Every structure is written in C-alpha cells, then in structure tokens.
C-alpha cells in the first residue's frame, strides 16, 4: 500500500460527539455541563449541515399551554402512531424530557411563537390536541440551530471542528475508544482518542431520489455503529412525507414547506380530477389537516397509479379558497418568495408527491441510549425504536433535543474519573489504511454517478410500496454497485476532494441500503411506513422488531420482541 505523505493529526477528548445538528449540539452541551471535555465534529460546517437547520415548523411537546396537556397524552399518541413497535422507554424519554428541553430552549431565546405570555401550539396529524410549537416564519430549524450553537460557543469545554468526516469508530475490548476521520478541508488523516462517543449523524434519506435531506444524511452513523459492533433496529421503516413539493420547480425553498401551510390554513388535497380523495382511503379531511403521513402517502400513490394523478405525477394542494389576506397573515415574507418563483396560491394549486423524509429505524440502544458497545451512545434520528413503524409529526426535533441531552449526560457520567483513552494504531488499523492510502484514480467509476444510481434503486425498489421481487432485484443491484465502487477510495488525500468523500459515503450508504432492503424483504406484512403489496395486511404475529448486526463482515438479521416498559424514572 502507498501511504499519503500528509502527516496525520491526533486529537484527544473525553466525549466525542459526531454530528452538529440539534442532537449533537444538545449532547455536547449536556456533556460539558456535567464536567466532560467535548469534541464536537461535523462533516459539514458546525450547525449548518444535517436536517435540523432545514426543519421549518413543528416541534411536539406537552408544554400544556394554552390547552391542558400532559406528556402521557403525547406518549399515548406516539405509541399509537408507532403501530405497536415503539420502544416505550425511548418514546417516554422523548415525550417527558422533551417538555423540559422546549422550556430550556425558550429560556435560551429560541423565539417560539407566542400568544401573549403563552407558547402558541398548533395541532398536527396524529396528535389529540394542539401540541406543536414553532418559530415564524418557517424558521424553526435555523432558530434552533442558532440558539444551540450560541450556547455551545459559550462552553469552553466544547471544542468544535467542522469539515471533519468520521470514517470509522475505534473499539477496544468491546469499549468505544475513539474514531478515525479525515479533514474534508485539506484531506489530512485524523485520529481521535475518546473515552465515550455519541453518534448524532441523523438518518438516511439521502439514499432516495426525492428526499428532503441534506447532502450528508446518507446513514453514515448507522454504518459506523455496525462496523463498531453495535446493532441496528427497525431499518425497514422509512417515512415518506406525503406532500413534498413536486411542481412547479421551486428554488431556495425546502420541499417539505407545505406542511406548515397545512397546519395553519388547512388547504385541500386534490387528485388530477380536482376532487378530494383521502376519504376513499378511510379518512376525510374537510379542509383540515388530519390524515397521518403513512395513509396520505398511500392515498396519493394509489391515485397516481389509478391514472388520477396531477400532471407531474402527484396530487394537487390548493389554498385557493383561503384568500390573499389570510395567506399573507400566516406566511408574510414567504408569500413574496413564492411570488418570485412565479407561484400565486390564490390563483393556482401546486403539485405535491411523497418524498423520503425521516427514518424511524436506526441504532439500537437501551434506555440510557447506550449501544451494545460500552461507552458508545446514539442521539436524535440516528436512534432507532422510539417512533416504531411511523413517526408523529413534530417528534423529530423533540427527540433530537431529548436524546441529545440524555446521551450527553450519560456519556459524561460514564467517563467521569476514567483515565484518558490511550491511542493504539492496532485497534484502528484497517480504518487508518483507508484514510491514508493512495490509490489510482478510476477512469470508469464516477462515485457521484453511483450515488444517483443508488438513489434510483432505493426509490424504485425499496420505496414506500414493496414486493419480494422488487426487494430481491434491489439487493442484486446494490451488490453490483458495491463491486463497482471497489475496496479502496480513489486518489490520494488532498483538499476538498468530493469524489473521495462520495466514495466514503457510498461505502456507508451501500451497507445501510442493504440493511433496509434485507429487513423489508423479511417483514412479510404491512405496518406503518413499511407497506408490502404482496402482504397487504398487518399481521399481529409480526409485532416484532428486526435487529441487524455485522457477523464476519456480513449483515445478519434476527427478530426480537418489542421491549416492555422498564422501570425507568
């Protein structure tokens, strides 16, 4: 092997937090508050990559004002939405701790919308009462990122490094001991010794052609966990957001932007014949916003299949009955941004279609968010199990807060009094070789094109509606892509080499895509976000979680009973 002449950089910390979205930022804060030295890294810029900054509206928590509410009601709704598969301990952390986090964020000046001295709350589908706070206008995610980032910057115990891509975790004697990474900015290989590690890398929706993800949501945290020896759970449950923007083409606006419009103004979902249609699938809307995400995705897809789709292949969403003044009052400057895109909602409907949005599955953890590997924790969307087979609207940012805070505190407690983690190259050997090696550039393989091919496989064959035949074809195509990618990254470490970044991303994405397809093929029923056209009914005997781990380099799938609620207080 030819090794790069670029010298390696070594870093050392108590708690390494990977990912600087809401979960990672909150984890870093919690760990630092409890006395740990923290290294917070992100493959993009701190607080700018990931999903949090893109969130536009709702954050669910039983803050109880103005309507009376209690976290147990939120928990009941979360468990119902999860179709019997939620880990009740994790769901409880989300709903109970989420309340404190929302109030803490309020004290930190995030700017939740208010009515007088009370937090304003809107009702989202699947919730039994108004429970979702937000920041106007469509500004929840940026406000959350900015607020947490400001708190993190005040903590001298937190060192922040962006443009740093973690490629593998280092585990010694079944205990997490650090990570191997490379600097995206200059290509430099980096080793990190850590007493505990928190994976807060978000989900996997970049693996789909139409997605609401950022460029760094390729499931890399899941692959890091698998290679470290931890387990994944519920990987077959990918949530499709039913009304992602489809047409006309918009720029500078997130594709899930219509969700807030529906919260505030209702709106009407219409098929290509300009008729409301969700009633034929079991739920009438009557201008309100009540149909859950899995049912709406199903209804739109089936209308399109029946030839009743909109011209671009989705459904119409119309606010024509709402009126210009009400639209302006609800969305202020956003109406002008739409006008610049040539859209006047008082005159024409827009077209929407399902879009990959969130992943319910993820890293399998216990009630303290620790994985099967000691001192390795997960937080945020990277955690699997809290939301079961379908996630409620508004639970994603809440779980980022609640799980981030818990994982950070648990990691800090775990490392207190522990001696510094000693670095040994031996434990990191294969990973080090990947980030340091120099290999010929390929004339035939374009990693950016392979990413697009992977997205096509996942969208066409591992989308919301699945069959045994489609999933088998997907697994074969993933295998071919893996062979095309090869075993070593192309070229040599150097500044901002996106082809090399793509190679490391694909290495992870192909492993995670296989995990999704394997779990989807094994689950011969339809439940929540996993719909099998060849097994259309929910089967009570499938009230099981599926667990994946790596055994001798191959993915191994097994089932586990859904956890009963433990006595966690």
């Amino acid at each position: 092997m030819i090794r790069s002449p670029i010298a390696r950089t070594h870093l050392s910390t108590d708690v390494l937090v990977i990912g600087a979205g809401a979960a990672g930022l909150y984890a870093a804060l919690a760990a630092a508050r409890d006395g740990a030295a923290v290294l917070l890294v992100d493959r993009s810029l701190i607080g700018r990559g990931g999903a949090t900054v893109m969130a536009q509206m709702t954050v669910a928590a039983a803050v109880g004002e103005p309507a009376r509410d209690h976290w147990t009601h939120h928990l009941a709704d979360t468990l119902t939405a999860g179709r019997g598969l939620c880990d009740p301990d994790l769901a409880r952390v989300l709903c109970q701790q989420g309340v404190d986090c929302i109030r803490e964020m309020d004290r930190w000046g995030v700017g939740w919308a208010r009515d007088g001295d009370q937090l304003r709350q809107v009702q989202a589908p699947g919730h039994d009462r108004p429970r979702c706070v937000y920041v106007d206008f469509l500004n929840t995610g940026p406000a959350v990122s900015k607020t947490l980032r400001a708190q993190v910057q005040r903590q001298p115990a937190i060192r922040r490094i962006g443009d740093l891509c973690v490629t593998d975790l280092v585990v010694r004697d079944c205990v997490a001991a650090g990570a191997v990474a490379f600097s995206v900015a200059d290509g430099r290989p980096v080793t990190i010794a850590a007493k505990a590690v928190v994976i807060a890398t978000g989900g996997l929706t970049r693996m789909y052609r139409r997605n609401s993800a950022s460029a760094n949501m390729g499931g890399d945290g899941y692959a890091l966990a698998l290679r470290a020896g931890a387990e994944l759970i519920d990987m077959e449950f990918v949530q499709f957001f039913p009304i992602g923007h489809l047409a006309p083409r918009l720029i500078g606006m997130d594709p899930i932007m219509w969700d807030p419009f529906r919260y505030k103004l209702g709106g009407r979902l219409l098929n290509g014949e300009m008729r409301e249609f969700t009633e034929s699938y079991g739920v009438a809307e009557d201008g309100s916003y009540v149909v859950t995400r899995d049912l709406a995705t199903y209804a739109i897809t089936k209308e399109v299949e029946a030839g009743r789709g909109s011209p671009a292949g989705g459904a119409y969403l119309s606010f024509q009955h709402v009126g210009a003044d009400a639209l302006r009052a609800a969305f202020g400057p956003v109406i002008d941004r739409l006008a610049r895109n040539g859209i006047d909602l008082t005159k024409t409907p827009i077209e929407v279609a399902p879009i990959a949005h969130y992943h319910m599955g993820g890293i399998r953890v216990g009630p303290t968010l620790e994985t099967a590997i000691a001192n390795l924790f997960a937080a945020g969307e990277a955690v699997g199990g809290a939301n079961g087979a379908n996630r409620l609207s508004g639970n994603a940012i809440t779980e980022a807060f609640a799980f981030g805070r818990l994982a950070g505190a648990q990691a800090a407690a775990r490392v207190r009094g522990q001696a510094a983690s000693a670095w040994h190259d031996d434990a990191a050997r294969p990973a080090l070789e990947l980030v340091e090696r120099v290999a010929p550039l390929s004339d035939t393989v374009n990693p950016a094109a392979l990413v697009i091919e992977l997205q096509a496989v996942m969208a066409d064959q591992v989308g919301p509606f699945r069959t045994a035949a489609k999933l088998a074809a997907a697994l074969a195509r993933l295998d071919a892509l893996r062979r095309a990618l090869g075993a070593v990254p192309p070229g040599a470490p150097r500044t901002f080499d996106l082809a090399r970044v793509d190679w490391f991303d694909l290495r992870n994405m192909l492993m995670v895509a296989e995990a999704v397809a394997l779990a989807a093929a094994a689950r011969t029923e339809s439940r929540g976000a996993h719909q099998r056209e060849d097994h259309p009914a929910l089967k009570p005997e499938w009230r099981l979680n599926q667990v994946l781990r790596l055994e001798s380099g191959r993915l191994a799938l097994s089932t586990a009973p859904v956890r009963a609620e433990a006595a966690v207080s």
Partner: protein
Amino acid sequence: MSEIAELVIARAAPGEPARTERFAVPFEPGQSVLDGLRHIRAQHDPSLAVRFSCINANACKECMMLLDGKVIYACTARLEPRVMVLAPLPNKQLLRDLVTEIAPPDERLE
C-alpha cells in the same frame, strides 16, 4: 434542439495550476445553478469541488460563490441558457475550485 447552459468554471487548488473549464449542461426551466453543478459532477467530472449541504432549501448557506462577478447562492440563482461564469469567493482562502474556507477560525482543524 434543446437549450444549453454553458458553465465556465474556475478550477484551481493550492499547488495546482489554475485553469478554466467549460461544461455544457442541458437547460431545463426552473433549475438552479447548483443543479447544473451537480449535473456536471455526476455526468462529467466528480472531482469538481462545490460546497453545499441542504441542496435546495437555502438553509445551510454554504454554496456562496461568484456568478459573473457577483456573489450568489448557487441554490437560489437560476440556471439560464447562456454562458455563466462561476468563480470562488475572492476574499477567502481557496480550498479547491468553487470552495473556499468559510468556517469560523475556531471551528477549523488546526
């Protein structure tokens, strides 16, 4: 015949000679400049460096560059069926092609 956006891109990196490359991108109404750059990476040259995270939401604010000498976000500037000249931000340290060092100094690897 379908219309073409011709992107003229400044290619450079520390220690490598600077050059300009021209790429023809099929033009579709409504696309962004970033769509054109992603098309080039997938179809012609995956080594073309461009910094972006959120792709289309104008949330990450990472894709700032010069278009015909003016600072733009590549995700909100419309692709047009004409010659479009792209260059990195002039007042920042160049990393590669259209990517500059824009991280705050205390958030970089030393």
